[in-house]
């Protein structure tokens, strides 16, 4: 999908003026934030922190051993009857998916929720080839009907109110008018059930790939994923190469941590392990399963100082915790992954020059790190990305000069004190209520801070005089 990350400021301004979005996002993120705390620390803080630490270590070990685990996974997946494919980038992945769809003469693809497929734009690609694609996660379904994009990794329609969802459903489907969310969900369920029966291709992502058993782990709440992966004869799972975990036991730990962090559940309603296509004695299941490992920039991240960001299990906890996301929502971030993790990986996946605003879309409050189930040091990565922006991107003359001037003054104590005096005098003499651009950015929302008549340095000298006199 098109990347508009560099338009963050303008997009954020639009979001700030959207009362429905403000209401919906604040409600949704607060709910997620509080439910996470309740679930994560169900057995006390120590237990919750130990879970986080275990999860961080599991993902850390998996990343450290990633090349070997990928080979082991491939071997075991093949032995289980999966067809394993590798895609270097979005184009390759889309070509593979289209080839498979054409080979099986697919006409209708049903999809379960997957950020990786969002990342490469599977829907557009298949639709351009005349294949109908239906999102079957309820939130994704509404996003698709509304011709929008998910605004949250876990809750795609967190930016929407009940009223706007109703409007979308009434405009885009035959749903009889209702304000009752249960009725709306019931309608969507019936609508999708028909499509599941017609579909000839199922497309999913994968929360985890377990190397030792050659299985795909998929967690979900709506059961749509079970239809997607078992009703159509062909199933394609698109999975980022960083989704590997070594053992089934480690997977078991992560299936506890992910829902607790994401939705505040101790376990998702459905926790699936897919061990291969339908066996001869089995009644249902896809006859062919293609697992496509997606790189799309991940190998480069793996070799960079930002490798730890690949530990992300896409729980969305950092979005719910982020004060910036709370007021801008997810669309302002301009691409697939919003919030703190998006501000880190979008520049890495799409190029720093194409997302150089995102590392600055952060007040450095540090809460995202505290809630991260795998303890990714997001604030530190954002600071490092800012350093990369300054050292590799064409600078902003105002900031470049401003910061060098500031640094120079701060290295010359006498000048610093003189500048302080001048600032205090000028601000006290001039009846300024507003500062000139770009400092009007401050006075639009704040009164001018008053400089003290005497600095501490002067007061200290007086204090010493009193003590000694």
């Amino acid at each position: 999908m098109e990347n508009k990350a560099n338009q963050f400021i303008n997009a954020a301004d639009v979001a700030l003026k959207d009362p429905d979005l403000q209401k919906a996002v604040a409600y949704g993120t607060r709910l997620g934030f509080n439910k996470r705390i309740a679930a994560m620390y169900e057995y006390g803080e120590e237990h919750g922190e130990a879970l986080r630490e275990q999860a961080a270590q599991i993902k850390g070990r998996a990343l450290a051993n990633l090349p070997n685990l990928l080979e082991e996974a491939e071997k075991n997946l093949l032995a289980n009857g999966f067809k394993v494919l590798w895609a270097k980038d979005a184009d390759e992945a889309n070509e593979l998916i289209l080839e498979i769809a054409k080979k099986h003469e697919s006409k209708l693809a049903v999809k379960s929720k997957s950020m990786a497929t969002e990342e490469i734009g599977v829907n557009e690609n298949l639709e351009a080839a005349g294949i109908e694609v239906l999102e079957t996660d309820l939130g994704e379904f509404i996003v698709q009907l509304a011709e929008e994009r998910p605004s949250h990794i876990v809750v795609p329609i967190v930016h929407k109110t009940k009223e706007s969802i109703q409007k979308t459903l009434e405009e885009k489907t035959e749903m009889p008018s209702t304000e009752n969310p249960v009725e709306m969900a019931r309608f969507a369920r019936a609508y999708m059930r028909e499509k599941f029966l017609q579909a000839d291709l199922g497309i999913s992502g994968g929360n985890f790939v377990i190397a030792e058993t050659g299985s795909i782990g998929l967690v979900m709440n709506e059961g749509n994923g079970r239809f997607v992966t078992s009703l159509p004869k062909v199933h394609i799972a698109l999975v980022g190469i960083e989704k590997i975990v070594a053992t089934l036991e480690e997977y078991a730990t992560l299936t506890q941590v992910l829902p607790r962090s994401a939705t505040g559940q101790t376990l998702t309603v459905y926790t699936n392990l897919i061990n291969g296509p339908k066996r001869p004695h089995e009644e249902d299941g896809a006859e062919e399963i293609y697992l496509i490992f997606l790189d799309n920039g991940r190998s480069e991240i793996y070799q960079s100082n930002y490798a730890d960001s690949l530990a992300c299990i896409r729980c969305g906890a950092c979005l719910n915790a982020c004060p910036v996301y709370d007021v801008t929502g997810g669309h302002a971030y301009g691409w697939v992954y919003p919030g703190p993790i998006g501000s880190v990986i979008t520049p890495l996946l799409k190029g720093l020059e194409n997302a150089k605003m995102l590392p600055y879309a952060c007040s450095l409050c540090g809460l995202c790190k505290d809630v991260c189930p795998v303890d990714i040091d997001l604030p530190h990565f954002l600071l490092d990305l800012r350093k990369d922006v300054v050292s590799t991107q064409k600078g902003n003359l105002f900031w470049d000069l401003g910061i060098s001037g500031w640094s120079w003054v701060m290295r010359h104590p006498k000048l610093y004190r003189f500048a302080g005096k001048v600032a205090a005098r000028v601000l006290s003499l001039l009846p300024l209520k507003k500062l000139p651009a770009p400092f009007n950015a401050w006075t639009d929302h704040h009164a001018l801070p008053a400089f003290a008549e005497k600095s501490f340095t002067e007061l200290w000298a007086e204090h010493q005089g009193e003590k000694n006199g």
Partner: protein
Amino acid sequence: MPLPKRESPKGKAVSLFVTCMVDMLHPETGLSVVQVLEYLGVEVNFPEKQTCCGQPAYNGGYHDEAKAVAIEFLKVFRDAEVIVAPSGSCATMVRVDYPKLFADDPKYLSEAERISSITWEFSEFLVDGLGIENLDGILPEAQSFAFHDSCHGLRMMGIKDAPRKLVGNIENAEILPLDRAEECCGFGGLFSIKLPNVSAAITDKKLASIKKNAADWILLGDVSCMTNMNTALEKRGEAKRLRHFADVLAEAIPKSGAKRGENPDGE
């Protein structure tokens, strides 16, 4: 990751790192810190060539400029045995970020690590460093206080209870809870200039809980967050203000330069 353990600062002279914002905007808070420390019998010196820790440049991504300022800081505090700052954020820069900033710079790394290990936020210094939770202070009349936890002090340095204990142990002081006490005020330094509208929207959410709080004062340990919120309150025509907790501590102890235990009754 918890910060490494360090030597006790007991009995050592304190070099005050007053921070540039306190120096220019709220020098009285610097004096409050001096007053409390001297009352406790701690020798205080003030290296007069100090300016700033370099955090604005560091947070902006300008590491070379930040380093240049930080190197001056290392020089100015070269002789310090203990450094105390009335700011969780500026203390974080020295304590947590200096070793990262100089990680690839062998010339300065060991000095940066030494300076990091002797740097304390003011309440942290009193409570964790000196083991003092009670100043035997008294306020002339009953007042209630609630605390905002500034982000860097809270999450990078683990400062939460120390200022509450110090103020809570003052006679006539009552501590009340603040809804969403740990939420960011939206300042973020350059963030508030680069993304003013986003910053202000976050500030407005913070102010909503501050405005409805019943306490006489909202206290905090950072003049930067305080200036952000106080000037926003002023702009919005609100009377409520935040204060640095050091000023309340100073208000509750003798002004005259008397040391604790040296009062006229000779207790």
